[in-house]
């Protein structure tokens, strides 16, 4: 080890070039990232961790190139040559000074990284300043329910928020008529707006999100929660504050009751009484202006058609898919109603019943 590792320096210089190109490449990739990319933050709560990880990634890239460079260099330089005389190399046992260097240097680097990390943790978990919108999130198997306590709005899968407003999510998990009895752990994750936070039955966890631009931000449940974990999607519809106010207006209007004699009115009757089979109203709610708007086991349907997607936001909400869903829900999304009562049951609906129910559900739209 006495010889000065000169070649190391050249490899270091090479390292810098490679690092730069690696970082550039990842930036290029983030530019074409999808709607669910953690590399493309769209709000302050996603931006802060992003700004923290980039320098760390660069340091990691440097270390990567250094170590791999050393390995490759050693492999090339110290290979046994064809004309080797068979003698043994110098038998070094170690070098205390070098070893101290590679103990202390990483320790110092890590100590430097640690400071903003700890700061970031407290910032990330603290309550945001200013005008905060609170939304309660309830993770169900396998859909997210949202409740706006300020407006008494229930909705599912798709959450509307105003732009440039910090949103504080108060989250818990529940199943079966909102009892934590069979609730399991989920994780709320919309990468472009914030990192994820687990949603735990029997406890409340918090997450801050904020969107800088109006857009539809995609997310997914990120903690394995059983059969249809893959089908538990999140949509954040960020809109200008004025649009958000209009949305609130629509959502706080009771659902219309269809006129007597129409197909939709038949549907509404079936919704409440399915002739011995479990009626929709046992698990869903369509709020028609009653005093209290009580949450149910299944998603609130009051303004169903104001949402673009359904069934854990894996399907477009249109007449055809809605009909297919009512006919055989498990074919659109695997559920376990027969086994443990989780999900939508197969109700054995006749064609006429299907027509009526779909007609009724299609009327549930505040803009109609």
């Amino acid at each position, binding site marked *: 080890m006495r010889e000065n590792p000169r070649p190391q320096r050249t490899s270091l210089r090479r390292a810098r070039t490679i690092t730069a190109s690696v970082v550039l490449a990842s930036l290029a990739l983030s530019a074409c990232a999808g709607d669910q990319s953690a590399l493309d933050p769209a709000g302050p709560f996603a931006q802060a961790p992003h700004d923290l990880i980039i320098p760390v990634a660069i340091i990691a890239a440097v270390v990567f190139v250094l170590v791999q460079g050393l390995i490759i260099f050693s492999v090339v330089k110290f290979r046994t040559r064809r004309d080797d005389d068979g003698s043994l190399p110098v038998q070094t046992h170690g070098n205390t000074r070098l070893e101290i260097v590679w103990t202390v240097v990483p320790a110092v680097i*890590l100590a430097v990284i640690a400071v903003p990390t700890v700061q970031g*943790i407290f910032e990330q978990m603290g309550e945001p300043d200013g005008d905060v919108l609170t939304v309660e999130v309830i993770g169900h198997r396998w859909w997210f329910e949202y409740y706006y306590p300020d407006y008494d709005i229930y909705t599912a899968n798709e959450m509307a928020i105003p732009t440039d407003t910090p949103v504080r999510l108060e989250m818990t998990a529940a199943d079966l008529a909102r009892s934590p009895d069979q609730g399991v752990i989920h994780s709320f994750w919309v990468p472009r707006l914030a990192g994820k936070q687990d949603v735990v039955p029997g406890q409340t966890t918090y997450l801050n999100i904020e969107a800088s631009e109006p857009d539809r931000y995609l997310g997914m449940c990120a903690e394995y929660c059983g059969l249809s974990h893959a089908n538990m999607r999140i949509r954040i519809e960020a809109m200008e504050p004025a649009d958000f106010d209009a949305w609130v207006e629509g959502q706080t209007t009771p659902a219309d009751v269809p006129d007597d004699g129409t197909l939709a009115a038949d549907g509404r009757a079936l919704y409440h009484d399915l002739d011995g089979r479990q009626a929709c109203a046992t698990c869903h709610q369509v709020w028609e202006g009653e005093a209290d708007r009580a949450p149910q086991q299944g998603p609130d349907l009051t303004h169903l058609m104001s949402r673009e997607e359904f069934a854990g936001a894996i399907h477009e909400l249109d007449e055809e898919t809605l009909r297919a869903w009512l006919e055989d829900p498990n074919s659109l999304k695997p559920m376990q109603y027969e086994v443990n009562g989780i999900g939508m049951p197969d109700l054995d609906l006749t064609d006429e019943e299907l027509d009526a129910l779909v007609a009724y559900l299609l009327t549930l739209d505040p803009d109609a």
Partner: protein
Amino acid sequence: MASSTVETKGFKGRPKGESGLSAWITTTDHKKIGIMYFVTVLVFFFLGGAESGVIRAQLAQAEMDLVTAEIYNQVFTMHGITMVFLVVMPLSAAFFNYLVPLMIGARDVAFPRLNAFSYWVYLFGGIFLYSSFFLGGAPSGGWTGYAPLASDAVSNMAFYAVGLNILGVSSLAAAVNFIVTILNMRAPGMTFMRMPVFVWMSLVTNFLLLFALPPIAVALFMLNADTVVGAQFFEPASGGDPILWQHLFWLFGHPEVYIMILPAMGIVSEILPTGSRKPLFGYAAVVFAGAAIGFIGFGVWAHHMFTSAIGPVARSAFALTTMFIAVPTGIKIFNWVFTMWGGKLRFHTPMLFSIGFVSMFTIGGLSGVTHAIVPHNAQQHDTYYVVAHFHYVLFGGALFGLIAGIYYWFPKVTGKLMDEKLGKVHFWTWLLGFNLTFGPMHMSGLLGQPRRTAVLPGELGGTVELYNLLSTLGVVVLIGSALVFLFNLIRSIKAGQAAGDDPWDARTLEWITPSPTPSHNFDAIPTVTHRDEFWHRKYAEDDAGKVVRVPAGASEDHDTDHEGEHIHMPDPSYWPLVQTLGVFPLGYGLVYLNFWLIGIGVLWMVIGLYGWIIEPLAEGDDDEPEDAHTPTGAAAAAH
């Protein structure tokens, strides 16, 4: 069944004979047990590999439905359980078994029959777990078994709770065994600081097992009680705390990572010096770094829970410990690299895999440090970025190191070399397939792909789809590569080139004995005067300070004086196998809460235990007198 003409002390006759099926199933020879571990691991490795094939096939394209979500969830759960508990851990145990006694100059482990017991419990635990596929479906709650999903009957996690506890018994018995073996049975002169690094890492690993297994045993018993009896440990409705499971699980689960990686680190620390023809750079630093990793490894568990329901103070504390543990890891990596520095490297297959280990493990280590950046961890956690990370640690790390060990010690076990050409094909395809599979996952994770989804959501976009396709292609390469390895293994066993006793110009004691190793290991227990004892018997410095080879045979330890002398070895025994069969009724009894089965299982094992106790360790021993135990040295090795 062999009958015996000698009067025996046990309930029934003792098995005799050195070969044949009964010699294997009744063996108490640490080498045979090591080989049995290895063969069993190979079977489970291909099962776990097939499961990963199913996973990658399903995710090759977006929105595929090759298998149902139900099957997919069972398959990924079993893949994790298999690779962790039935492949990497027992493969390390295979190496402990075969090598530790040889490396410390002993003739067997401290408790030979307990050793056989460990193996049988492992085998039966594995069979028990896999039997769930035929009994209403395999566990599907993920290998981390997060409650309360795991305590929901639909997840079939009773098999997981009981099966892992069975495997835990195996590991606990082995841990006690190897700790005592290493502390008590070192050859004269084999001080701690002369122990091969592999032995050191075995010691640390087994201490980790000793202290990491209780928390998961506790958690599994609770889960078992919840699922089967209806206890309320993790039921939020009555005030149970699901986070308790996570703490207990990861209190085991993080040391577990080091349980899996440290043996591989030990193996690489043996192979790199041999392949570089110079001693390990900074032996003491490597040893202490290993011990430090083991120690700090108990203080980082909550970094698996950074997005769970824990507060900012806990998150900060565990971020710091997690960063801290990177330091000893870094020390090791640099010491390995500088072991090669200035050497004369020979790129035989074990060396290639060892270098591959250092290189790939570094990547896993670096992505590990990024996890400690807690605010951003919230983006990485439970995504394919994490899947990439831990495969770089456990596949690129542990498995590369263990495979290096297979190639390296194959000649020790069989007396034959594995084919070098096929070995190199294996290495390069393995390296390519591995990086092709897991490299892209870093990106697909950051681009928003969560782990454990039964379909690849199309909405993640074309880039993510492309990365997934690459990963699947990588698995295809890996499967081909694994088959090359298997072919090489079988062919080399049948018709490998004769290796001689010291094919690598090795450094440690196990190569002093002829290959394959005779059943009593050493004709005479060696006296150790150096670290790398064997190397120092082969080489000496001449007057000019140049290293020269000692004339062949001058120091070989085939001491003829001892030939014909009676070497006292433990006899084979039926009892470990017989007793262990009781885990089946006991296990199924605990899954189905059948007190008859539980009773039969317990009774069976107790009776087996008495058979074991009454039978002396070796025939002719009248249950050895107490005072004959001199723990260190030749006499001890015989027990």
